[in-house]
């Protein structure tokens, strides 16, 4: 893995971070990339929103009043 990854690679690590613990090197490269890339910071924020909405949606399955 190169020290400066592409947005495509960074986005893959961003989504994988929702499901697995990234290796220290992967985490470091991702943090470095995001510090210099506004697009990837926004993408990470979008994924965080998706995670929060999935949590609410799951809760909706347990509490029918929260279902859409």
């Amino acid at each position: 893995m190169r020290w400066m990854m592409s947005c495509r690679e960074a986005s893959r690590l961003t989504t994988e971070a929702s499901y697995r613990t990234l290796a220290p090197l992967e985490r470091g490269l991702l943090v470095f990339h995001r510090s210099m890339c506004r697009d990837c910071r926004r993408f990470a924020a979008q994924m965080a929103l998706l995670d929060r909405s999935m949590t609410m949606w799951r809760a909706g399955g347990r509490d029918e009043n929260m279902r859409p």
Partner: protein
Amino acid sequence: MPENLPDDALSEQSNATLHIRKNFLSLSSADLEDARAYLMRFARLQLRNEAWAEDAVAETLLAAVQRPDAFDGRSSRNTWLVGILRNKIVDQIRLHTRECSLATDDDRLDIEDEVFGADGHFSERPSEWGRPESELREKQFLAVMEACVERLPDQQGRVFLMKEWLELDSDTICKEIDIQPTNLWVLLHRARLRLRECLQQMWFDPATTRP
């Protein structure tokens, strides 16, 4: 059962539980049909196969009727049924492992090639999605998200919901549908990219009329 409650309170508590169980047993056919319709929505979304969904829901209702004692009344009846349905959906996935691991043409289309250019940068810059707190308060947003999940290609949708809704761990998913962990990460990544695109078009894009 708490030991420090007086006998009267204990008796009151057991009467309340008994009342709830009696209520469950006295479901009318209309109630059962409502519960069935409610469960079918979840089962269809997860299994993407009408026959498998019907089987999972029928087994759920059968299990509920056979073991009404398991319903303690702490949650709503539908919430309790959804809890049973989760297990029945996993059973269906186990039963149809081979079909579940088959990818459709849509699954094979690489969304990454649409989202990223040849240089590895975003083809279209990600937009600001606003304040999550205010967006998430809206039930409509969750309805749109559910519609987007429905539109995921079969295998991506199944894997995504096994992870997100059934909350199965990665090893179990790989085992159940016979895929490698690297394939699982790719499927989940593509599912998220598709959801992101769908939410962008259906909710966040100001040019689009909200439902």
